[in-house]
């Protein structure tokens, strides 16, 4: 049997292929590099414009709570405090809720209810944050004032509790902002927790059930220890979202930079003070507001990087185990 020699004359433009291919590869690489360029651009452009404020205030920018734009004093501690407290409230409520929902969807719910719950989560994530802010501002703010004050009355005289749950003047407060944030953070933590819970090997779960464990014991004994790290990552991604949320918080937190333990008192957070004032500011005041943005950018980058690190390390470990 003979093999006919390959007729190479039919292979046209042989030399063009590789060069076009290389050009296309470079083009796509360019697309990928835009991400890095934009991130670097954000860091450079904002830091540059914020520099006057950093130079003037030094470390006091983040360590002093003396914020007085008219006197040229820019200590942003009260905003850092506001952001921390509001995020903390949101997480304290949202974390058990999200983990519960994620376990419910993955381990418990029958198909119909599972589909319903996933739709609820998708809708919660889809509603724009300004709409949550509007509902908080126009509907909840007048209502929660009475609720907050009756809680304050109920706990008055009890140490600690009476400091945390004090009087509310207008309903605008750390607490209301935190409650609104719960609606925005829950879908994020839930969806990532679900991904994490889905990595638990079916064999381990079936094993626990075969040994006679109830579903709750199976979840506690198999799912939770297996997924703890991943859930921590999910919570940190939720934290990143809570810290950066602007427009919903600005409508309900109350515009008063102060460091008080009373959660029913009005406050101010980092993104909300920027949103409220950047358009009407100039000079060092403007630089200080942009500087707050730089600080917020840095904070969320750190939180997100560690969260992604945790989640991806976990994924790699799971892949190794499987």
């Amino acid at each position, binding site marked *: 049997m003979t093999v006919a020699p390959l007729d190479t004359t039919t292979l046209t433009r042989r030399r063009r292929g590789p060069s076009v291919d290389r050009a296309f590869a470079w083009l796509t690489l360019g*697309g990928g590099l835009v991400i890095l360029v934009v991130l670097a651009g954000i860091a450079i452009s904002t830091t540059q414009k914020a520099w006057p404020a950093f130079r003037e205030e030094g470390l006091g920018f983040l360590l002093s709570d003396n914020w007085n734009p008219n006197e040229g004093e820019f200590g942003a501690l009260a905003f850092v405090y506001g952001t921390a407290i509001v995020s903390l409230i949101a997480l304290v409520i949202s974390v058990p809720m999200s983990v519960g929902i994620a376990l419910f969807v993955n381990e418990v719910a029958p198909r119909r209810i599972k589909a319903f719950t996933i739709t609820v989560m998708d809708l919660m994530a889809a509603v724009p*944050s300004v709409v949550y802010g509007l509902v908080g501002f126009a509907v909840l703010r007048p209502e929660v004032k009475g609720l907050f004050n009756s809680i304050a009355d109920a706990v008055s005289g009890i140490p600690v509790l009476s400091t945390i749950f004090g009087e509310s003047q207008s309903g605008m407060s750390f607490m209301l902002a935190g409650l609104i944030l719960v609606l925005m953070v829950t879908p994020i933590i839930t969806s990532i927790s679900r991904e994490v819970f889905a990595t638990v090997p079916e064999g381990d779960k079936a094993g626990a059930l075969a040994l006679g464990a109830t579903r709750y014991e199976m979840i506690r004994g198999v799912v939770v220890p297996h997924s703890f790290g991943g859930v921590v990552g999910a919570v940190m991604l939720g934290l990143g979202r809570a810290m950066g949320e*602007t427009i919903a918080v600005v409508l309900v937190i109350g515009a008063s930079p102060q460091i008080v333990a009373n959660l029913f008192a009005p406050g101010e957070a980092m993104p909300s003070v920027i949103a409220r004032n950047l358009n009407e500011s100039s000079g060092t005041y403007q630089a200080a507001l942009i500087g707050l943005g730089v600080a917020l950018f840095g904070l969320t980058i750190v939180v997100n990087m560690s969260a992604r690190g945790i989640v991806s390390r976990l994924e790699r470990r799971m892949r190794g185990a499987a």
Partner: protein
Amino acid sequence: MTALAPSGEQIVLDGSTISRGRKFRNFMATAAMGVAVLLAAIPLGFVLYQLVAKGAEMIRVDWFTEDIPTNVGAAALAEKFGAEPEEVIYGMAPAIVGTFLMTAMASLLAIPIGLLGAVYLNEYGKNGRLAGVIRFFTDVMTGVPSVIMGIFIYTFWVLRYGPTGRSAIAGSLALACLMLPIVVRSCEEMLRLVPDALREGSAALGSPRWRTTTTVVLPAALPGITSGCMLAIARAAGETAPLLFTIGSVTAVNFSLQGQNTALSTQIYSNATQPGGEPLAWGAALTLVVIVLVFTMAGRRVAKRFSIDAAA
């Protein structure tokens, strides 16, 4: 159902041997999860109900054709003091136009670049070091708060071009920064779903890689890519913070990319706090949610159809 223990004893396996305490804890845990779902579903239902209850009366023909009224404050004041209020024509046309204009511009910027980036990650970079770095920072950028994108374009564009800097272009740039990482990641996921057999088949026929990518891989992933892009568009359309410092404000329709503009999201924010502006805010909120949900659901529907195809 029974089982035979090694000792020869019959064990009943219908659950009747589980102690009451264990059953109770199991029941309580299940109930707590159900309560968590309700705790999420009830506020969502409340929000949607409020939107329809308060926003629906705004949705008339005028709403889509008229300028944004500037006399709501005066009318509210007149009513308060018992005077005859001026007639207010509730319109939101400029904001609807602005939202569509800027979302479309942002998509034109972010989707092609994002798609190229995704092709690089999945077809060329793969598990290489640079691809890993880009992938990591794409994830990080997804978590950067949207207000930062607004501040970035404000420092980079608005401050540079002064009073004329605030425009639909600036707003689109800020929204594009927000969309870019979302587009990259969702497109990459979709490209990954394309079976390698297709690439190998194309390569075996003698196609260079760029041709395989553009004529085989991208068309195969198109439904998924469309779905991911629609979700990114929905996300951008609903954002307020990137637009706060970048578009200024107008009350008349501006189809141009130049000159100040407005959007539904920023109108909700400014009208909510303005005396007499609350009806405008509710109407704008309902309009915005409908737009966002249409894109979200269309995206999900395309995604669903695609996943069935992939399974078949």
